[in-house]
């Protein structure tokens, strides 16, 4: 469980990025952190594995303050997949890239071998085992980065903007994969601007603006609140926008799911016939 109590954070440059955040994330929860650029989303999640330490207030991971533990120790339970895979890839082969973290955490050789096989298989990149990560496409590099984090099987997985630079098919796969992780009782925290992605996954949403939590609740509640999304400089999902524009025809304004929308429209058509 992650508990954030009155968290304030100011960068050395003087920029106050977080201003009194209070938040609890239960084990096995799926959470999306949303908001405009500079809202403090990444700064907030960087506190969960101790990369940043609070200026005021505290962050507790499984009851332990992140101030008292090193990043390496916290990282064993909290995996963080960075936005740009090129910020972490450095090894000669994909296999070495995955082995890197496992060696850092002191896993035994036999376990390392097993975990590497498992991670390569999980992300469908076994065929690139001996390939240089620099020779892969953007989407493949992202999968290597993800595999290198999942390899040590952390309880909490943080993904910073996972859908950026991914084509539709990759995005679909990623979505399924994240939902699968959550179904395995992993705590999944996603930092994203992608409203369509959030609408389809339907996690609990935290909407941030200027270093504060503007609102929190289920995706359907947050993404259909026009006032809130405007305040956070995001736009509702396209399907919601259509339904909002057709509200005069008596259509509901709280639809975020395409399947739900289709059902409503079909029902209306049948009624007219």
């Amino acid at each position: 469980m992650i508990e954030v109590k009155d968290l304030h954070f100011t960068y050395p440059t003087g920029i106050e990025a977080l201003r009194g955040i209070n938040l609890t994330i239960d084990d096995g929860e799926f959470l999306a952190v949303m908001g405009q650029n500079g809202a403090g989303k990444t700064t907030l999640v960087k506190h969960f594995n101790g990369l940043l330490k609070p200026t005021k207030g505290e962050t507790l991971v499984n009851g332990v303050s992140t101030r008292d533990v090193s990043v390496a120790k916290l990282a064993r339970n909290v995996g963080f997949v960075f936005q740009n895979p090129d910020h972490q890839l450095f090894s000669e082969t994909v296999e070495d890239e995955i082995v890197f973290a496992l060696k850092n955490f002191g896993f035994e050789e036999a376990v390392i071998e097993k975990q590497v096989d498992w991670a390569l298989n999980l992300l469908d990149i076994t065929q690139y085992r001996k390939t240089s990560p620099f020779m892969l496409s953007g989407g493949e590099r992202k999968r290597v980065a993800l595999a290198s984090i999942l390899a040590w099987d952390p309880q909490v997985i943080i993904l910073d903007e996972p859908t950026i630079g991914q084509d539709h098919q990759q995005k679909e796969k990623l979505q399924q994969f994240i939902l699968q992780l959550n179904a395995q009782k992993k705590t999944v925290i996603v930092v994203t601007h992608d409203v369509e992605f959030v609408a389809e996954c339907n996690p609990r949403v935290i909407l941030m603006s200027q270093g504060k939590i503007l609102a929190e609740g289920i995706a359907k509640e947050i993404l259909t609140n026009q006032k809130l999304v405007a305040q956070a400089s995001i736009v509702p999902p396209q399907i919601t926008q259509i339904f909002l524009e057709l509200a005069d025809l008596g259509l509901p304004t709280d639809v975020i799911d395409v399947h739900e929308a289709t059902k409503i429209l079909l029902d209306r058509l049948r009624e007219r016939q």
Partner: protein
Amino acid sequence: MSVFEGFKFRKVSSAIHNLDPRIKFFYVCVLFVMAILFNKLLALVVLFFIPLPFVFMARVKRQWLRSLRGAAFLAVFIFATNFIFGYFYPASFQEITPPIDTLVEYLIILERAAAMTLRFVVLIASFSVFFLTTSPDHLGLALQQSHIPYEFCFAFTTAVRFVPVLADEAQTIMDAQKARGLELERGNFIKRVRNYIPILIPLIVNAIRRSLELAEAMESRAWGASEKRTNLYTLKLKRADYLLVLVSVLMLVLAVYVWLYVHIPSLTALLSI
């Protein structure tokens, strides 16, 4: 990364910022020559204080101190290297007759090591003031007006402009590797140096990738299409610039005079008396 912060231009309205960059560069070069001329600790202590009025007048004290703090690791390395080489090759010291067995002889080696370290600190301190108070645009303009080919000016100013970008990127890469259990400060000296490989490789690969992208973007915007470029702004020397030239020349003349005709005693010799 704080050493890079000390070389990042700060937009402040001050008399030092308004000085002609060519003259400021001349002043810094004079400091450079003076630092190279002297190898006595006393002389280098005096040199260390010369850029201080500049720092206070330019109101960049905090950033300047940060650059010194960032250079501390290298300074310790220089001190240790000089001391070790001085100890094992005492033949370079006129005052010492091997083997080294008296306290005074140890102090002489220590003083030389301190002097070499201070020489490095003086160089960092003076160049830091220059870069903190000179915008990359002004720097480019100064080079162009000094009849240096535009291609070189552009390459130089771009390199300077990208220093803070690289510093930010290095910090992100460090965070990404720490999140995979890398502990930079763990192990003996060799291990610690090796710990930086996962930071350096992505940094270099990304820098090369970015430079190629920049080259393509520049070519697409007709870079180098016209032989004679025009400039919106031109640099003109003002009274303060002439004053700084005068001060710099006087400093240089004085330094050369002292170097040729004045014997600077070593601190150890002074204390022995």
